[in-house]
């Protein structure tokens, strides 16, 4: 298992993190070491073992369909980097998504 700088760059892109070339090189090396170590999980993860996603076996935790007061627009927008017309102002969006 060896991650190339290009692999790491692709992952950083998926994760929306700007990384420098120097960072890429360091990360690729470190991730290789970590991935080598964690690969051990496959030794015991046989097909007959059920995966656990939640530590506790709770099911059906619901709330009633009741409206409670929301934040005021002022509270909602208080920490926004930029606001316009009671809305969060963000830079132009490049791509249309799902």
């Amino acid at each position, binding site marked *: 298992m060896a991650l190339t700088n290009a692999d790491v760059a692709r992952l950083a892109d998926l994760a929306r993190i700007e990384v420098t070339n120097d960072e890429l090189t360091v990360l690729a090396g470190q991730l290789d070491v970590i991935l080598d170590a964690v690969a051990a999980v496959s030794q015991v993860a046989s097909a007959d073992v059920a995966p656990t*996603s939640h530590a506790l076996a709770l099911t059906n935790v*619901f709330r009633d369909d009741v*409206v409670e007061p*929301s934040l005021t627009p002022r509270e*909602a927008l208080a920490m926004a980097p930029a606001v316009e017309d*009671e809305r969060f102002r963000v830079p132009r969006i490049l791509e249309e998504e799902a």
Partner: protein
Amino acid sequence: MNVDAVMDYDEVMAAYEPVIGLEVHVELNTASKMFCSCSTSFGAEPNSQTCPVCLGLPGALPVVNAAAVASAIRIGLALNCSIATWCRFARKNYFYPDMTKNFQTSQYDEPICFDGHVEVELDDMVFTVPIERAHMEEDAGKSLHVGGATGRIQGADHSLLDYNRAGVPLIEIVTKPVTGCGAKAPEIARAYVGFLRDMMRALGVSDVRMEQGSLRCDANVSLRPHGVTTLGTRTETKNVNSLRSVERALRYEICRQGAILASGGKVKQETRHWHEDGEYTSAGRSKEQAEDYRYFPEPDLVPVAPSPEWVAELATTIPPSPTARRAQLRQQWGFSAAEMRDVVAGEALDLIEATVEVGCDPQAARKWWMTELTRRANALGVSLDQVGVTPAQVGEVQALIDEGVINDKVARHVLGLVQAGDGSPRRIVADHGLAVVNDQSQLQAAVDQALAENPDVAESVRAGKVQAAGVLIGAVMRQMKGQVDAQTVRRLIEATLTD
């Protein structure tokens, strides 16, 4: 602007079979959002219906709305789906500014409803549309693009985000590939979406207003040469937000793909956008590789495991399917197949049903909605349910006719006044003095005058030429300004002449 070559539809059909698939998002009409207690009401002040949960603030946690789960199960039952005995929510990870957490809480490989089918009617034929799944998820916020042309994302300078819609419960209903539709594929797609809309309305789980986005449709289509059993490359067309667009967008895509295939090209698997104004699709951003959503089970929510008892209880609340309901109503009302088809196409079914419910004769109700009121709605350019006259008012007008208080002609006039907001039909008849004149002396005088002015006609009627009475009736009606029942006039004329 459309730049793609298209092929004649019939020519495409001669060479290829279309396979369609539809993904429909239904916004539920629960009072509160999917995972928090903010209101879902439409049209509120921007960012006035948000909280730490739907704003995705650090530390906030989701809690599932029980009513949304109940709606999901009811929808699944109505679509003849199996209901999962145990299923989880999953996170669909991708970055987009309208998503506050940059993951959508959805369901992945464990949908709450799966393997169903529905039967939709088209031209007296019934098609079975297989349903792959219906799952629960949350809606995203709304972006407003500023600085570009006509609010489009392209060329915008910046965008403004309102998260009132973020977290509103959605049910995504996905068909399996629908094969065997032939040339009718676009119409079947339209009928299917119409079916879903009617079914959701009957279930009472959604407002299903396509124009407000509470029912949204993505339409997939691929072509394959006749006789080939593997599926061709499909495109997914988004932004198909009216029944008419469903049909037209698919028809367009079929013609576009046909042109590509016929010229030896390959259809590119991509997302396309439907342009309602120009009636064409255009390619979305082309992606170098398939989007990697990195789904994994949502750790903040525990599994949903509907008990058989709960599902059984919900099953008792499922209304008949629109198809079954139409058949049943048609029989009850004594409509012909053609009459029923027109009623359905004219969006008058619910209105007629409501009119019949207040005691109106079904044929009379059909007549009012399909003629006079459809005419008025068309004139205003609004849908029939927005015409400004309620089923109860139509029923009242018909009751006035049945009571002999007004006639058809006056009734049409009264409906116009109801539409203008003058009040209830009875009130209008009273206020405007529109009631049929029952004053015998006034009516007798009018009859006598008509007989005197038309002695020849009177004579031929007396001689047994009953049809000729029409002239006399017309004269009396004119004299009485229409406020009289024609049958009453006829009887009075006959009585006077045989005296």
